[in-house]
């Protein structure tokens, strides 16, 4: 699907969780990692975040929470973890393994 203004953005506005704006990446990880349907995945993520199922889609709540938990935010924030560092924190939060983090750990020299 091309035409991002006609596809990706309208779907986001109509029905999307919003990715790292809120908790969409976390819910997606549980869908793929544990084959959870949307209701179960939302509940699981909400419990791990310590908020309600309703609040995991709220940008106002999730922006602050993501920064506190160091799991990645959408704004350019110096010293805030992103990429592999943020994903390692997500592994701990959700109790899952993420392939890119595993590869990173395999690559670094043992100290």
């Amino acid at each position, binding site marked *: *699907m091309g035409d991002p203004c006609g596809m990706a953005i309208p779907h986001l506005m109509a029905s999307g969780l919003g990715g*790292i704006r809120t908790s969409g990446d976390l819910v997606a990880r549980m869908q793929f990692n544990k084959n959870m*349907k949307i209701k179960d995945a939302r509940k699981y993520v909400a419990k791990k975040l310590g908020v309600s199922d309703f609040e995991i889609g709220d940008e106002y709540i999730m922006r602050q929470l993501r920064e506190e938990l160091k799991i990645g935010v959408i704004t350019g924030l110096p010293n805030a973890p992103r990429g592999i560092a943020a994903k390692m924190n997500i592994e701990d939060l959700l109790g899952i393994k993420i392939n890119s983090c595993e*590869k990173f750990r395999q690559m670094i020299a043992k100290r």
Partner: protein
Amino acid sequence: MSEIYTRMGDGSRVVTTRSKVIDDLNLGSADAADMGVIKALSSDLIEQLADIICDKNRVVGVEPGHEVVLTYDIGQLDFTGDNGNSGNGIDMGRLEAALLHERAMGADTFELAHADYSIKPVKPVISNEMQTMEEIQNEIVAPFFYGAMPNMGLYYKPDGPYGNPADLMREFKIEEAMDQAEKASEHMARDIEFVSTRIMSAGSDGFNFDTTGSAGDADVVGTFKGVEKLRKACPDADILLGMAGECVMGIHGSIEYDGKVVAGLFPHQQVKLAEKAGADVFGPVVNTNTGKSLAWNLGRAVTFVRECGKVAKIPIHVNMGMGVGGIPMCETAPIDAVTRCSKAMVEVAGVDGV
């Protein structure tokens, strides 16, 4: 009765009435029920869909708390691709495109893609793709997959080594056509294993098999076998398997997967085989009829997808690009139509993602 502005399946705007919308929803649903031998939508659900279509607002959306996960196809090609992909034709790096989707466009997941977006052309440049995957994984936070179409058509002459079944059947060489399709299917499964396992070794979260079955039933079987190989080699890989159409085309006609003939299978039957193969998430497709209304197409698509979701053990991410999922078939998708279909699939079909 007040007039309603709606769309045809080709995207053109038409004026109609609520009663006509309800008639078309019922006819579309009945068509799906007839083809798939499944239940048509109840009158309550038809009314719910009519409310969505007849909403006076230009943009509609789900109630807060009902948001779902979005997955994507063609990766960065929505920015960089040409008109054939409804792409913007903007030359840019794949890292930038991925991070723009994550941080500027609210993507829950995203993917890396080759310009030809097919398994076969990735083979010669696999090292390049692995290197780019590693680079993007270092920066991105959201789940980031590799995406490609199985696209078995590329394995037939003149693009590939096998005889083209369409040409062979014209010459009444039916058995040879079936034999060539089976050989192409096996070859494609081997290539899927080659590409997908190497991409996983580069840190990919998983693989999106997009437009499965575009070359018919042998394409579906080859993809399922490729998925099996990936699952065996990488048990933790995230695997998204999306289809090409609501009904598997019987180009071969009798090729089987797990003891079942795959030609003629509909979404609620396809998903059971996708589960067997090892998919984590299934992407049902219902193609749009450009000569029918948005209501007819949406009623039909929701009927198929709702049944698929009912029987599925894995999450369902319905395909909702141009010309699928009730959305009109046109290059510049009307936002009123896209948001209506998106809301309908979440709230009426009950999908887990789009």
